[in-house]
């Protein structure tokens, strides 16, 4: 099994592309750093009691006033930039990842049902998808965000900010999955292996789950990878526009927004490092997605 995996075209084309290997490494690094943020980050920027405002605005170590405690300097609250980036990536990735999962589950589910059963339900789901497609994701996220914030009790908002974001970014992304899955499901549905499962009376839900789902997941993987990058950017944008996570537990986008105020005043590191971190993360994920898209697209081989 393992041997077969390493022998596959996927691995082969991976090992042949240095850029992709680099992108893969970077992505893995981000994920690991995020998962083990508590161990990796030199400080815990969320622990208010450990912050000292007198440590704020320290430049990176290599600058004249640098402080060895803070490799990349500190921000306006005295949080180490490196630590906030690590924890911020964790939040960005968490929100990005969760929204992708949310979109994926919702979209794949609806797409499967829609494509397999067809008929009125299909028409309805696709109409809804079309309406939603009328609005760019960021607008939908803004609106859902706004509405949720309006509905939720105010006191709960910062606690629920993550979930609000996940929901708004997640909901704005399911259409692509649904349409793709629906398309491939409609192709798969007519394939003979599905027919032969129907001939022996397997329940439609089981057919969808066991037969069709594994066969439509290829493109989904590609979409999900690229969607992860989009979701991370969406989160950053929402946070930049001020409707994202609270600045006490900042994501990369919030960090950029905070730092943006200091761009002209010379404290460039507060915005540039998180900006770089975001760009590199998204770039790496996009590179992976691009590569996957090319590898998994049998037509282009």
């Amino acid at each position, binding site marked *: 099994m393992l041997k077969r995996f390493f022998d596959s075209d996927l691995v082969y084309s991976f090992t042949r592309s240095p850029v992709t290997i680099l992108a893969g490494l970077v992505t893995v690094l981000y994920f690991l750093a995020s998962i083990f943020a508590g161990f990796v980050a030199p400080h815990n920027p969320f622990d*208010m009691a450990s912050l000292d*405002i007198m440590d704020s605005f320290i430049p990176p170590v290599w600058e004249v006033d640098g402080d060895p405690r803070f490799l990349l300097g500190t921000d*306006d*609250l*005295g949080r180490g930039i490196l630590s906030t980036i690590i924890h911020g990536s964790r939040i960005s990735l968490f929100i990005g990842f969760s929204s992708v999962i949310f979109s994926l589950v919702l979209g794949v589910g609806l797409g499967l049902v829609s494509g397999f059963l067809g008929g009125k339900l299909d028409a309805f789901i696709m109409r809804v998808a079309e309406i939603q497609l009328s609005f760019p994701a960021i607008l939908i996220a803004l609106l859902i965000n706004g509405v949720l914030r309006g509905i939720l009790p105010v*006191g709960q908002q910062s606690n629920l900010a993550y979930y609000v974001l996940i929901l708004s970014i997640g909901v704005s992304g399911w259409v692509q999955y649904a349409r793709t899955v629906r398309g491939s499901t409609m192709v798969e549905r007519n394939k003979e292996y599905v027919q032969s499962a129907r001939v022996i009376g397997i329940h439609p839900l089981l057919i969808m789950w066991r037969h069709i789902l594994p066969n439509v997941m290829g493109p989904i993987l590609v979409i999900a990878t690229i969607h992860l990058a989009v979701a991370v950017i969406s989160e950053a944008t929402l946070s930049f526009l001020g409707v994202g996570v609270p600045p006490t537990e900042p994501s990369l986008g919030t960090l950029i927004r905070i730092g943006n*105020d200091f*761009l*002209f*005043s010379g404290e460039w590191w507060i915005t540039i490092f998180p900006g770089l971190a975001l760009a590199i993360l998204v770039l790496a994920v996009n590179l992976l997605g691009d590569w996957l898209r090319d590898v998994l697209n049998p037509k282009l081989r």
Partner: protein
Amino acid sequence: AKTFRWAFQGDAQSLDPHSLNETFTLGLLGNVYEGLVRRDADLKIIPALAAEWQVVEPTRWRFKLRQGVTFHNGNKFNADDVLFSYGRAKMEGSDLTKCMATVKEVLKVDEYTVDFVTTTANPILTAEWSSCYIMDKEWSESNGAGSPTSVTEGKENHATRHANGTGPFVVVSRETDVKTVLKPNKHWWDTAQHNLTEVIFTPIGSDATRVAALLSGEIDMMYPVPVQDIQRVNSNEGTSAMLGPELRTIFLGMDQARDELLYSNVKGKNPFKDVRVREAFMLGINIEAIKKKVMRNLSAPAALMISPSLFTHSGQFSRPAYNPDRAKELLADAGYPEGFEVGMDCPNNRYVNDEKICQAVVAMLAKVGVKVNLLAQPKAQYFAKVLRPKWDTSFYLLGWTPGSFDSWNVLYNILGGPSEDGRGKFNLTGYSNARVDELTDKILVTTDAAKRDEMIREAYQITVDEHAYLPLHQQGLAWSKKDSVSLKQRADNQFMIYHVNLN
């Protein structure tokens, strides 16, 4: 031609002088409209449309109006306009009812004389009048702007985008949130001290963009300068920042009215009712660090709830030094050795670095064991949440400028025990002290300055001892301009264009 371009972070929300009691809106309108009185660059009340006035009896003031003044459209200014304008300020939909606060009625004595009859003696009647502007009765009524904007009618009030004042500038064109063009009023009754031929005002919301616009020379002046960019503006060739003290006091309020705090893990009791807790909060906040790091020295740590420049005896009060250890002790004494949890409300686009101050406070209180859950929101949502009637807060940050520049305003609105008649309307802590209220009432009617100041001092002393509030600082003013521009900076953060000269 001397065209002066300037920017502010927002736009005046309306040109109707009675629609909104908001510093910038009224400040901008102060260049177009005028009141009976106005303030000079040092904020002293000086005559404007009223040439002189006297207190005929304690509750009757007589104003002699300036003659020969015309509105921008050429209409003559007279007593009818005064009566009309003050009446309009009292109508539903007006946000400037303060103009009529203690006024019972306004009487026309002759074409150029008006009497104001007050309910009680009010020595500071004119103090808040510098922003009570006079409109042209004929123009307003013939244009259907007889009353301030009423949203319910579903129609736009003509005065929202058109102005017809007596002031030094005339509105040439206006695109809301984009651009407002003014030109000098050639027929102004006063002698112009500026040398401008055109004024272009642009709101620029983004701090960075606003700074960039100044640095790149696209505008001549802008405010506020984000504190962190002051240095940059100064170091840039040809531009500099103008710093100065502002009158607004930023403070924290602690709920002492409810029996159980909102958004807290302490159930069944209210820690803030214990003066030791309030003192602990006071001692636990390192105001100097906030000054240095958050405000970049552009703030004056406060001991009182009023700017020192507005109260003669303020030198007698001093702020206790930062002492986190003592704060912890006090909390332990009060029965919270492990601290407690409380929710905090904070605006994020109202005051200078408001949200950052709150974050710093959160971090500092965390050090003495209090876990503060911060909710920072745009001002619209923030005010809707914390102010009455919703009054949904137990710990909050607010700023206050006494419009009259007088302590009575603070004592009545902020420190006074909340009551139906309007006292303590902005006292969201529910703090109430009978002696303070009694003193406040007396202060209003006392004309002897020394006695009055002493009573004010006593009232402040009580509230300071009881740690009724937690004053933080007076934020600084930060304007910036090209070096080629000269202008005067007023401590109330109102920008009077008739002081501008372009070289």
